[in-house]
């Protein structure tokens, strides 16, 4: 072997997802997957440094109002003010500190600040609906925003997306990267939503539903919701042995 690496790398491979806990790429009830899901089997990739490393962010990337979506314009947005807070953990239960979280959402009327959104609901000039923050040393984060509205889409007859906030999280590795959606407890639209229903495992699916939290709720000001996010972590059995 002419190209031996200088030293063996000491990283630990990441856990693989258990069957049913993530959506498959093809899920027919969600029509857009039909021409976009790969049709050939994925190739198993052993983890190397390329997979277990990933971008590192610092506080320089975050501005003061980035985690307060109600304070980014001259006036206050319309809608029900909410606090969304929680922790980012890895699948070993360890907090993921200093990791970038990005969120984006529709306004309280169910309309996105996006040129292609044609839903005939009003835009709100005091609401863009995008935010970002870093988790603290305990993996905790906090956003202030307004509750997004449900909105119709063209997937099937009389299709409505349940109210949701999009979350993008990095974690420590390029393969711990997660884009997901946070839903609200008790939403009757969840039962009819193919995006939410694309996850076969009931317990895993419920991870995406936030919990109303009276402790987070601030009197005379805003309702509080808890949303913990669990990312893939290093394989714990190997982790303990080194």
């Amino acid at each position, binding site marked *: 072997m002419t190209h031996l690496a200088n030293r063996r790398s000491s990283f630990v491979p990441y856990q693989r997802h258990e069957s049913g806990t993530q959506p*498959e790429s093809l899920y027919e009830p969600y029509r857009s997957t039909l021409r976009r899901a790969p049709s050939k089997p994925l190739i198993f990739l052993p983890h190397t440094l390329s997979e277990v490393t990933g971008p590192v962010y610092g506080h320089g990337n975050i501005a003061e109002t980035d985690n307060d979506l109600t304070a980014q314009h001259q006036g206050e947005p319309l809608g029900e003010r909410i606090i969304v807070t929680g922790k980012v953990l890895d699948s070993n239960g360890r907090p993921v500190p200093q990791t970038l979280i990005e969120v984006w959402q529709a306004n309280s009327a169910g309309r996105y600040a996006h040129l292609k959104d044609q839903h005939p609901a009003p835009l709100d000039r005091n609401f863009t609906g995008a935010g970002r923050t870093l988790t603290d040393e305990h993996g905790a984060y906090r956003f202030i925003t307004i509750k997004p509205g449900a909105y119709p889409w063209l997937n099937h007859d009389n299709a409505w997306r349940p109210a949701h906030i999009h979350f993008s999280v990095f974690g420590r590795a390029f393969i711990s990267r997660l884009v997901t959606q946070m839903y609200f407890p008790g939403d009757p639209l969840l039962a009819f939503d193919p995006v939410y229903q694309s996850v076969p495992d009931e317990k895993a699916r419920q991870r995406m539903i936030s919990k109303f939290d009276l402790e987070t709720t601030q009197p005379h000001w805003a309702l509080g919701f808890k949303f913990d996010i669990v990312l893939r972590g290093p394989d714990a059995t190997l982790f303990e042995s080194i």
Partner: protein
Amino acid sequence: MRMVPTPSQTVGPFFAFGLTQGKACSPCIAGPDAKGERLRLLCCVLDGDGVPIPDAMIEIWQADADGKYHHPDDPKSASANPACLGFGRMGTAEDGTCRFETIKPGRVPGPDGMLQAPHLNLALFARGLLKQLYTRVYFANDPANQEDPILVLVPKERRSTLIAQLENGGRWRFEINLQGERETVFFDV
């Protein structure tokens, strides 16, 4: 204790104002002062009908010219080139394309102490993708491709889908086909 990870959900069609506009987004993976051979890369994303996808997002993660990742888990990260942070993100335009500027990465360690051929790690997000797809960008005519420990895991007839081609004018082109005869190889990570 093992916790079940939060499931992935699609980015949907309206992510641009959250993910690919302003400071959230950068075509520049390695700054102008980064050491190494500079390169320009055009990526093009096509669906199962060969139609360009205008609402996709590409993220790229790569090592510096010496094959070091700017990350604490790389044992050599202390000497990684600070001008090459190694990450870029772009949304695709109406024609399904997006462009990156970077340097050619060096070789990083792979399984069993073998070195890997220079490659970019690519994650693709889009409406209709319930979870991101992972692929790799290798560079045509690099002799190291012959002995890359990951490329050998891919059936021979499909390997070319992972290899960017140098176009006239010196720009690299990498086409991502989600389905069809030239379907790009995606990895189970």
